[in-house]
């Protein structure tokens, strides 16, 4: 059996690899999909969906989030290249790695600014006539086609035009198709803009480092693209670990009360009284001791999941506290008492009357937490207890950039790229969360 598979992989040229975080992502997608199918059978959810789809800002946000999700998903499909010479396969790669291979391979020596033709640091070089001079050397993989580096800007302009031509060509085609299919105009316009961004990036990215390179000479654009998956996993996974737990504890504490309330309150007060960073640091250090020697990417992946769990454990208290307070208010409200007067069971009261009425809090705090977690990752990376240093993340990028901010001239592009991509994720997430919350609240629903 094993050998059969091996020969199959050999024939295909690759062997799929599934990491732990991949499993979680597939599970998440599966659950989300199933839930969506069930939810859409209900009429009120359909109404909510219609309201969200009618909201242009929400839908554009959704599309942007979709782009992030697509990048993250491509980065989740892992495999090893298998060939006759290496039957056990080479290092693990993802589809994203393969797609951005041109970026990966074009590693410089060290920092270079966006669209630069020269390295950021001076080096001692030998001129053809044997003199030694100290100057900025030309980059090995950017602007190499230029005979005279001073022509850079006109070359960039030319390439921009080419990209524009391609983008407009493909984009306008898509736009026409969309309009012809009877979809909304904004979706076509969004596609047009998205296509433009992609074509410009491809055209320019072939011969320049759009976001520059980092200390080890890696292309920053590649690093930010790889960071998308890390950010998404930290944001969603942690939130999804926290939310059900916080809802359950909050509602139990608020509604059932008594010793259950005492225990839950005791637990979260204790957790809250320990500095969060300290707790995470301690937990991460304990984890590191238990880590076996494995391939870097596998251990880094495990560390990521573990980080999510720990951040989840430390951040459920706020939501739980909020929900408990809300439920204390709701349990005295008359529709809950009316349900009690019908002899509706406690479980059903919690599920039917309490959960839907605290969902607005859950949604708001989920969206805020998602943003907060993506940002918190940066802080943890700074303290050295974030994701594995070998794993690309915005936190690690910011942490590296921090050390170079004092340089003159400043090395700003690491930070800038991370900032742009984080903003691009967090802002649409907030906008979309708002729209969903409004749509789920029947009081705000427009008919």
């Amino acid at each position, binding site marked *: 059996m094993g050998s059969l598979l091996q020969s199959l992989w050999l024939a295909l040229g690759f062997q799929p690899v599934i990491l732990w975080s991949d499993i979680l992502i597939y599970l998440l997608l599966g659950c989300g999909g199933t839930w969506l199918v069930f939810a859409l059978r209900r009429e009120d959810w359909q109404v909510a969906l219609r309201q969200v789809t009618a909201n242009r800002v929400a839908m554009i946000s959704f599309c942007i989030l979709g782009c992030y999700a697509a990048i993250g998903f491509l980065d989740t499909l892992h495999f090893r290249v298998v060939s006759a010479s290496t039957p056990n396969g080479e290092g693990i790669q993802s589809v994203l790695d393969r797609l951005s291979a041109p970026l990966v391979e074009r590693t410089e020596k060290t920092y270079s600014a966006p669209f630069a033709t020269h390295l950021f640091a001076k080096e001692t070089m030998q001129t053809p006539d044997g003199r030694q001079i100290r100057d900025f050397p030309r980059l090995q993989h950017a602007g190499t086609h230029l005979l005279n580096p001073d022509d850079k800007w006109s070359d960039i302009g030319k390439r921009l035009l080419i990209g524009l031509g391609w983008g407009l060509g493909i984009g306008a085609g898509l736009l026409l198709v969309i309009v012809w299919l009877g979809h909304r105009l904004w979706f076509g316009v969004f596609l047009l803009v998205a296509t433009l961004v992609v074509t410009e990036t491809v055209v320019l990215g072939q011969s320049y480092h759009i976001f520059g390179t980092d200390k080890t000479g890696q292309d920053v654009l590649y690093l930010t693209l790889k960071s998308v998956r890390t950010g998404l996993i930290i944001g969603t996974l942690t939130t999804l670990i926290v939310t059900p737990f916080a809802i359950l504890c909050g509602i139990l504490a608020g509604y059932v009360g008594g010793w259950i309330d005492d225990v839950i309150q005791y637990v979260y007060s204790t957790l809250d009284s320990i500095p969060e960073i300290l707790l995470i640091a301690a937990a991460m250090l304990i984890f590191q001791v238990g880590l076996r020697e494995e391939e870097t990417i596998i251990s880094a992946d495990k560390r990521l999941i573990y980080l999510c769990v720990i951040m989840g454990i430390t951040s459920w208290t706020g939501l739980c506290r909020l929900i408990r307070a809300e439920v204390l208010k709701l349990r005295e409200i008359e529709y809950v008492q009316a349900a009690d007067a*019908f002899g509706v069971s406690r479980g059903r009261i919690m599920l039917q009357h309490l959960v839907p009425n605290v969902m607005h809090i859950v949604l708001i705090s989920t969206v805020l937490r998602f943003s907060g977690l993506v940002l918190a990752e940066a802080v943890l990376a700074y303290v050295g207890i974030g994701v594995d240093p070998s794993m690309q993340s915005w936190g690690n990028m910011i942490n590296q950039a921090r050390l170079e901010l004092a340089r003159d001239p400043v090395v700003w592009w690491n930070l800038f790229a991370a900032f742009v991509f984080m903003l691009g994720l967090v802002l649409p997430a907030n906008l979309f969360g708002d729209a969903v919350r409004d749509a789920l609240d029947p009081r705000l629903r427009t008919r």
Partner: protein
Amino acid sequence: MLLRVRDLKTYFRIKDGPARAVDGISFDINEGETLALVGESGSGKSVTALSIMQLLPQPAGYYAGGSIELQGKDLLQLPEAEKRKLRGSAMAMIFQEPMTSLNPVLTIGFQLLEPLLYHQGLTREQAYVKAITVLGQVNIPDPERRFHEYPHQLSGGMKQRVMIAIAMACEPKLLIADEPTTALDVTIQAQILELMKELQRQKGTAILLITHDVGIVAETADRVAIMYAGRIVESATCKQVLANPAHPYTVRLLQSLPSGEQRDRGLQTIEGRVPPAHRYPLGCRFADRCHVVQTACRTIDPVLLPIAEEHTAACILYDERQQGRRITPVEVRTPLPPRPRVDNLATGDTLLRVEGLKVHFPIRRGILKRIVGHVKAVDGVDLTIAKGKTLALVGESGCGKTTLGKALLQLIRPTAGRVVVNGQDLTELDRQALHPYRRRLQIIFQDPYSSLNPRMMVGEIVMEGMTVHGIGYDRRDREERVKEILGQVGLDPDVRYRYPHEFSGGQRQRISIARCLAVNPEFIVCDEATSALDVSVQAQILNLLEKLQTDLGLTYLFITHNLGVVEYLADEVAVMYLGRIVERGKTQEVFQNPRHPYTQALLSAIPKVDPHTGGEKIRLTGDIPSPSTPPTGCHFHPRCVHVMPQCRAQYPSTVPLSASHSTSCFLYEADARTVAQGNEI
């Protein structure tokens, strides 16, 4: 002329165009006069008050025209600084909710000094002296001590007095009182109204009184303006309006007031609701709800026309130019014909019996949460409720009537005593054993806005109880029954797929009733079920409850502080004071011959529409004591006019006055003994 309002138009910017909250009203107030502005919610009364005070919510509200002249100065033309000088010194306002109109983190004194220092330029010492005087004028006992207290240390009635003190501190010429007593109990309401009248007599202040309570109008107002959909539809002296209402709306409004006289008639209702302020109909705004509507009403927007001296009404019935006048004012005023009131009293079966019921809430203090005392919300109540009848439970807020209602249904577990249904004591049963009884005993709550889950569709809400109790054998069967019940309470079956927020207060209360009916109950506790509704809607709900009682043989426990409703609806009355029942009997007995001093005071404190029938007013002093430290002896003795030494020593036993009428008061113990002796002989 103190205040002259001419063609005032106050609009609000909303999505669907301007909402014409106040749409061209004119009125005058003379010095020392009280004008009452009466109308249902949404008629524009409060916006009128805010417009005069120049306190419109900005930037949504704006003046679309007209003028407001106070002492000859047009307020709309004044700059903001001038307006601020007038506010507080020339005109002042009292709001409805005393709990929220005082700042909880500042002392009473601080809030009282503010206007004095700002408007009158007094020194701190002078202002302090003045403040103490004003507090004394509004009958606050021990003003020096109260001056340094915070709002939470005062009762609701005291807070409203403080509000009046703040408003009157600078001796304004005009006082605007927006529902000043709606949040207060009747005995406290009587005190506050008395106080306002007294201050008016002393200082000659003009009062613009905004209210929906016709009784208050009858007792305090000189002139009345009836508002409907942003317009004044009738304006006259108070006596004229009450004796000869002219506009069909006024007529119906007065006829929909529940009272003992209406008992054998049923209540007149006004169908429908006030049209929304951004979509007024073309002709008369009342046309859709009017009982004497004519075709001309749909096209002609009526203006105020004089129909007698100082009496104007906006209705084409009084328009000479309208030839199609076929209905006389007398016809407009025709009341409902008497109808036989079905009396199911004959069965005489007891549905529910309460014996020695007590609900005590422990007060816990300190780290160990030791019990340091009890709030005795219900403190030994005996009741029997007969099948198919309505028992009204009457009392002021804090007397424990709601707690009693919930304790009957075991929503709050009683501390002691028995609640017996069919020979079964409910207090002994655990959650599971209680389940079958849940179906038979139901409750309707006061607030129609919080009693329906906003996240559930109406159909789900009504069906929930049926699912829990396995009524109907499948979903489709239940669905059919839901439709039927919605029809029964006067709603369209299609409302099943809508959410509660889309309905008005009255419709929501109908949904609440439908939810109860779905499980075929025998007994329904109506906890202030109509208190949050407008009079015309209240009449609809009361009629519905009555019809359901005759059709389904329901038994009601009607918890309320509205004595008019009691007199109209109830078969029996129990009066509650501080956790105990002080008097009970048949409705007629208690209303015509109240025996307990508290009942007497309560009945005389209700503002009467016809002031001559009231007889001498009994004014209670002081507030209701806290149920955690009730007075020794008879709970009522600190406020009682007939207090005797023995009242302070022990609680009086229940004295039977007739077969159905009994009270707990020492005044009648001697009578009872003679009755008992007479029986022996």
